[in-house]
């Protein structure tokens, strides 16, 4: 069985990229492959917001990503790219003197170095 890492660089809702990534990961897991993790970068960091609140009849990506984490898929977001777009972890939020933080588990605020660690797989697929 093979190992994958997934790079998500497309914005949730605005584009189909996150949806395609989910379908791909679900299919890979169903085939018995291992998905080491998802790394969110560029506009893809918006997937990491714990506050994604679509209307009830649309897919809630937060819920979908959480379900993947429960299946052992690590979820890392680039904290620099995220901060540029108004997404902060608890620690970064406190350092900036903000109240509240929208990067919460199951998402982990990481650096690009984390993505380098995730390259030790058979395939990286970008959505």
């Amino acid at each position: 069985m093979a190992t994958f890492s997934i790079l998500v660089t497309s914005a949730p809702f605005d584009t189909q990229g996150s949806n395609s990534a989910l379908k791909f990961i679900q299919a890979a897991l169903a085939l018995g492959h291992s998905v080491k993790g998802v790394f969110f970068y560029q506009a893809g960091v918006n997937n990491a917001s714990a506050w994604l609140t679509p209307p009830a009849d649309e897919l809630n990506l937060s819920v979908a990503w959480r379900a993947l984490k429960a299946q052992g898929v690590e979820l890392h977001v680039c904290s620099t790219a995220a901060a540029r777009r108004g997404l902060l972890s608890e620690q970064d939020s406190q350092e900036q003197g903000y109240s509240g933080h929208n990067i919460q588990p199951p998402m982990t605020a990481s650096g690009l170095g984390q993505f380098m660690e995730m390259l030790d797989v058979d395939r990286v697929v970008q959505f």
Partner: protein
Amino acid sequence: MTSKRIAIINRTAPHGHSQGQEALDMTLVAGSFGQDVGLFFLDDGVFQLLTGQKPDAVLRKNYSKTFAALEFYDIDTLVVCQQSLQARGLTQADLCIPVQVLAPDALREALASFNHIVSF
């Protein structure tokens, strides 16, 4: 660090979109982690390397100055698509750093040698 080689492709022009800046961020981190990394410039991505950019005028960061630092990060695979340059009336002399200019066949071959490819 893993021995997997990663190619980072620039396909987008600078300043109108953030792809180039964040591709460069990723390249620098890859270099500082000792990752074997190649940086490619295709299509509008070749505009990233133009000399004389003054993005302050449009309130964007002038990250093109950082391309000169790539050699200190041991990133020596810098490849530009010859066809993309030509199509835009550019030559190597218009670019801010020394690069390898490759024809489409050679460029594809160079890309194929990497384990992983990401594009911006």
